[in-house]
């Protein structure tokens, strides 16, 4: 009799210990920091695309403290290796993974299929899945504003664009820049040189130099390095950076730059995963969401130029002005967007033509 009671007591003890342990683990897991990972296509520089994402990551760490633990892998090539790196991050326990380059699109989708409880956010892509979202910034808004500044500052009326690859995103930027410049200076024209790379300081610098040799006096870029800025600095012309403030490459030349501000988006999405409210969607943030901004204007910029830009910025942020609002003519003079209409998101995503004012033909 005593033995049976002892045995029952023993069982109860075991079960309650197990229960206690189990709830302790569950409780601990609940307070375990959420592991968030970032996949970068380039090195974390002093400036540039990857730098801007890393700034966002640091902002996330700052805001959410010990609720998150972040990791990043840099310089992951966009090919067969990307899938492995993303898989390893998922296996390592990361529950939210940001893949920050277009070329990671298909690898991200493949890994997402294998890890349905991990959430993926792909930058600059167009394919989604149940656990894959896409996100990007309305950089064209920033480009339009920098175009205005360039149009006002230029003396030769020739502007130069160091471009990477003829994808819609880049073409959109060129067009927005041109439209902005010509909205204040109808005589301005834009030259474009394609360097076939996102990051190649030598080539970018050569491209800038070539255009400067041809009379361009304001350079801008859709590439990652400070090459164009330092080329502009050396030749005493102006330059507009991209991704982040690039004045470190040329204090005299750097007029301004279109900066990304990924931080708030990263915080919002991480909180969504923590609260269980994350859904697959496409986020295209703009000036109104504080997703991008212009860096401080060069100290010698005339005051009233800066205020024109500031004023236009608030108009765009309030939705009162759309950079791609008609009438917009293409290079042949044909009216593509009639007056009173603005381009839709879909039309902007697939942009394959140059607006009037861009020199040269778009490579196919």
């Amino acid at each position, binding site marked *: 009799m005593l033995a049976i009671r002892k045995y029952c007591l023993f069982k109860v003890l075991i079960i309650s210990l197990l229960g206690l342990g189990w709830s302790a683990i569950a409780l601990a897991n609940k307070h375990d920091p959420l592991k968030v990972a970032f996949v970068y296509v380039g090195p974390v520089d002093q400036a540039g695309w990857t730098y801007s994402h890393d700034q966002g990551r640091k902002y996330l760490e700052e805001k959410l403290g010990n609720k998150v633990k972040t990791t990043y892998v840099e310089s992951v090539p966009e090919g067969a290796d990307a899938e492995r790196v993303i898989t390893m991050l998922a296996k390592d326990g990361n529950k939210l993974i940001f893949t920050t380059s277009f070329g990671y699109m298909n690898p991200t989708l493949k890994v997402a299929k294998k890890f349905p409880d991990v959430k993926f956010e792909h930058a600059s892509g167009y394919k989604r899945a149940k656990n894959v979202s896409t996100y990007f910034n309305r950089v064209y808004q920033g480009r339009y504003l920098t175009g205005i500044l360039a149009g006002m500052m230029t003396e030769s009326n020739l502007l130069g664009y160091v471009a990477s690859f003829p994808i819609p995103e880049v073409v959109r930027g060129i067009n927005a820049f041109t439209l902005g410049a010509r909205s204040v200076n109808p005589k301005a024209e834009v*030259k474009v*040189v394609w360097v076939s790379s996102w990051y190649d300081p030598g*080539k970018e610098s050569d491209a800038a130099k070539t255009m400067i040799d041809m009379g361009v006096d304001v350079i801008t870029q859709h590439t990652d390095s400070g090459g164009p800025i330092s080329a502009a600095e050396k030749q005493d012309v102006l330059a507009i950076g991209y991704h982040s403030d690039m004045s470190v490459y040329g204090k005299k030349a750097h007029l301004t730059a279109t900066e990304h501000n990924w931080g708030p988006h990263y915080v919002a999405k991480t909180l969504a995963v923590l609260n269980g409210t994350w859904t697959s969607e496409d986020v295209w943030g703009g000036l109104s969401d504080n997703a991008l901004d212009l860096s401080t204007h060069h100290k010698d910029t005339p005051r009233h130029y800066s205020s024109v830009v500031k004023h236009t910025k608030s108009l765009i942020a309030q939705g009162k002005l759309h950079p791609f609002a008609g009438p917009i003519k293409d290079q042949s003079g044909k009216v593509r967007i009639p007056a009173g209409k603005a381009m839709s998101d879909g039309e902007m995503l697939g942009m394959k033509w140059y607006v009037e004012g861009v020199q040269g033909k778009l*490579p196919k």
Partner: protein
Amino acid sequence: MDIDLIANILFATVRMGTPLLIVAIGELVCEKSGVLNLGQEGMMLMGAVVGFMIAFHTDSLFIGFIGAVAAGVLMALLFAVITMNFYANQVATGLALTILGVGLSGFIGRGYVGEALSSVDFQIPLLSSIPFFGKALFSHDLLVYISIGLAITVYWFFKSTRAGLVVKAVGESPESAQSLGLSVLKVRYLAIIFGGAMAGLAGGYLSLIDTPLWAENMTAGRGWIALALVVFASWRVERAVLGAYLFGFMSIMHMVLQSFGLSVSSNLLATLPYVATVVVLVLLSRNQQRIKLFAPMSLGKSFHSAH
């Protein structure tokens, strides 16, 4: 096409051709002594990264250049020891040097990606204001003029000095040279080191003056083009100068054409310098007699000293 534009294109041609010329001269001397060093890319990159690092920390381009040359020399010494003392195959060792140089430079340069240097301007006071020639000929960086000076010196070296003759002798027949009492090992060591110094200098030019930035693999194949240049030049300095500027021209053309608004695919245009190299190589090598006439007889072959 206005005259300013032509001046600018000439300027760009010289600018692009200078690093090629410097490396080619270095490798030319090396090959004249009978040693084939394929490690140019690796040596150039090491020169570029070390030069950049030193200039960044000391704020002096001059010390940076010294560092660049030193790095090139060290890499070349490594090559020299392995091929001259350990009798290893020159082709394989040169390749290994390239791979090591590419990896090592990326490795140590990692902390300097994206850093900026304060660039230095140099222009010859009066001459650079001459309308056409001013821009095309007299507004270059100091190193461009040094490279021309180098070319002239090396030309004179091989044409009129005894030392130059010794180098050529070692390259043509090391056995005969040795029996005459010349130290083949010493001559080749010096030639290899000179080649390394030049490669380091050219690398330094890229990262200190041309861009001035550091990026992994920033030489983008210039080392290989320089090797082809030496063959193109039939191992003659004056031809190397011509070839270097020709390739410089090819490299800049695709951007110039784009700036004009030509819409040829930029990728296909980018193949210009490489296609040109192949074409030139083919045209030159066709005449087998000619190659035999100019290539140093012992090029690439290991030499084992008699004692």
